């Protein structure tokens, strides 16, 4: 398992190829890349700053991967999350999961992303035409996470 919190950009191709080549019985690598949008709640976004809680962030992301590994038959998982100042179209997050088959890898990747959105201590501040403001948490993100708890213990 790999968890990285960094200001630098990442190379999707390189990261995926490392996951692919780590085991010759790998049959699937599923990945998600999140990118900074120039629009949020109808306002034009020119810049985004990400703050996090060093130490807790890494712990939280590792716990989420651990939970995914215990629920699905996957080989490995990678999370890279950027912090600092970002511009529209910048890559912000990468989640990648390898496994023998696609089904488990798809589910684990979505699970990791849904939990990351609601549990990992990151906060976004946007610069828009109307000024600077903190991004509000979305209930739809909580709902997305709740889908995974039906019949399962919460990871908190």
């Amino acid at each position, binding site marked *: 398992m790999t968890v990285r919190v960094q200001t630098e950009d990442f190379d999707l191709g390189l990261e995926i190829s490392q996951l692919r080549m780590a085991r010759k019985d790998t049959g699937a690598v599923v990945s998600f890349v999140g990118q900074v949008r120039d629009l949020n709640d109808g306002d034009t976004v020119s810049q985004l700053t990400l703050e996090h*809680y060093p130490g807790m962030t890494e712990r939280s992301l590792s716990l989420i991967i651990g939970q995914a590994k215990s629920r699905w038959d996957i080989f490995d998982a990678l999370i890279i999350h950027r912090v600092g100042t970002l511009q529209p179209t910048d890559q912000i997050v990468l989640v990648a999961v390898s496994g023998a088959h696609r089904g488990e890898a798809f589910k684990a990747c979505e699970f990791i992303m849904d939990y990351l959105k609601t549990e990992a201590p990151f906060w976004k501040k946007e610069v828009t035409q109307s000024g600077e403001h903190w991004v509000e948490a979305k209930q739809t993100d909580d709902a997305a996470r709740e889908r995974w708890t039906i019949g399962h213990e919460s990871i908190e």
Partner: protein
Amino acid sequence: MKIKLFYFARLKETLKYSTEDLDLPADVVTILKLKAFLAKRGDVWGEMLMGKLKVRAAINHELVDDKATIADGDEVAFFPPVTGG
């Protein structure tokens, strides 16, 4: 009881504190009691910690609720709901 406190995002900005070391009175033993204790510092503290805004807490890097117990040497943090990803 001595603890280390951290504030993040909107809380850090509004309270103008990112971290502080506190020696708590003996009766401040839960997250809720700590919030109430800090709220006594004045308007903006009450607004941020006991007001309408949702505040999440962590003890030693683990998300906890208001009932969670604080122990000597703990690292406690207050922050808004998270918005990463």
